């Protein structure tokens, strides 16, 4: 499996606890890049200054820790964009 697909699969384990939906299905992941064993994740959160920022960002790091070939994870949060409509 391609490494980006593996990352996406693992990120599906990171749930936004307020909504109970994972960050991938929420449309929070903008971009994934892997360079020299470091995964760069460009993502957003559901609301500006989200109080769950530290929790979710930490969750992304933990979720990707076990992927072979990934030694480090760096993420950056951007402005707001939501994917699917939230029921």
């Amino acid at each position, binding site marked *: 499996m391609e490494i980006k697909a593996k990352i996406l699969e693992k990120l599906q384990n990171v749930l936004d606890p307020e909504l109970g939906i994972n960050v991938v299905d929420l449309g929070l992941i903008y971009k994934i890049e892997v360079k020299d064993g470091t995964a760069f994740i460009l993502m957003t959160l559901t609301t500006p200054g989200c109080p769950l920022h530290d929790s979710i960002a930490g969750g992304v790091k933990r979720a990707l820790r076990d992927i072979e070939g990934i030694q480090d994870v760096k993420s950056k949060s951007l402005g707001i964009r939501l994917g699917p409509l939230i*029921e």
Partner: protein
Amino acid sequence: MTANHTYETNIRIPFSFIIFGLLAFFLSQILLFLSTRQLSTGEMRLPVVLSAVHLLVIGFALMTAMGAMYQLVPVVFLTPIWNESFAFIQMVVTSLGILSFSISLAFNIQMAIFSGLLLTCGIVMFLWQMFMTLKKQKKRTVITLFVGTALICLLLTIGLGLTLAYHFWSVRQLIDHDLIFKAHILLGFSGWFTLLIFGFSYKMVPMFSLAHHFSMNTARYVYIFYISGLVLTFISFITANDRLLSAGLQLMAVGYGLFAYHMFAILKKRMKKKLDKPFLFALLAIVFGVILHIAAAGFSFESEIHSRIFSIIIYCYLFGWIVLSIISYLYKIVPFLWWTHRYSKKIGKEAVPTLKQMINEKWIVMECCLFVASLIGMIAALASSSTGLFYLAQGGMVLFSGLFACTIGSVLLK
């Protein structure tokens, strides 16, 4: 991993304030239940009633608001709390101040000035903490204006409260006692609590409904109208001018109406279609607030303003707007705080519960319905001076305060 911001406050700070608040709420409702005979005759200014009301307003509402601010200020203003150790000292001083002040009011009102000074120390420490924290905020917003003005009103409220306590101690009036009493209530309820709830609503309503791309333009008109109304009403107390009082209350009603309109305009832009139950009760509190502001403005046209009607409006304002807003948001904030403490380090590694699973929503709905039913019963009891109805409705409030504390406490077992 590069974390852009750190918003998390030491969980023990908000929790210590909230737990004290829950106990004070329960105790205040029992004291009010025991004062039923006096209250049903419309007599509000009795030592035990003053004690119960201060336990509710300062012990529950103010302490909970302080605890919530220690958690919300870093999130809303993207600024960490200035000094966390100072927050613990402030909590201890304020708690001792509230307990001793409430006891003084009930048993020896003349000596309330001394416990009042201790309480003032605790509140001033909180104001200093907030001043030092907000000073560091890089980009000030309209929310800073609401919260900053609310904090100034809190300072004025405690100054007026101390003046009242001085009157009791010295048995002489520095300034007209009734004027100070009315201003104390106006600035405490509408100045401090309402402006604070306005300010944080601009963060929490979009956050809990996932609303984006809404305009904030109306907020400045909310501020201008509401503050103008507050100032005019305050001046009307000094000048004893009924027309000015009417004008002030009307401006406040316009400001509040604009706030309610703005909140529902924000909700129209939401992405979360099905709103959580506790949040719906916070919105119900806004509806109560609109009705009460219109009622206060409407009754101010009467040439002979009936103090009993205003007493009922003030009671409804405290319970229907301020207390209902606080309890509704507590049902959301406490699960979040405990979840962050217990599960934030486990997310992505193992299955963690959602915030909804941290608290029983069915119980929340039943409890909030009990609260609203008890409130309506209390209004009817106060209007009809029915002692039986008063016992029943206040019994409902006692039951609610106990269940509420248990439901919030049950989160800590998850």
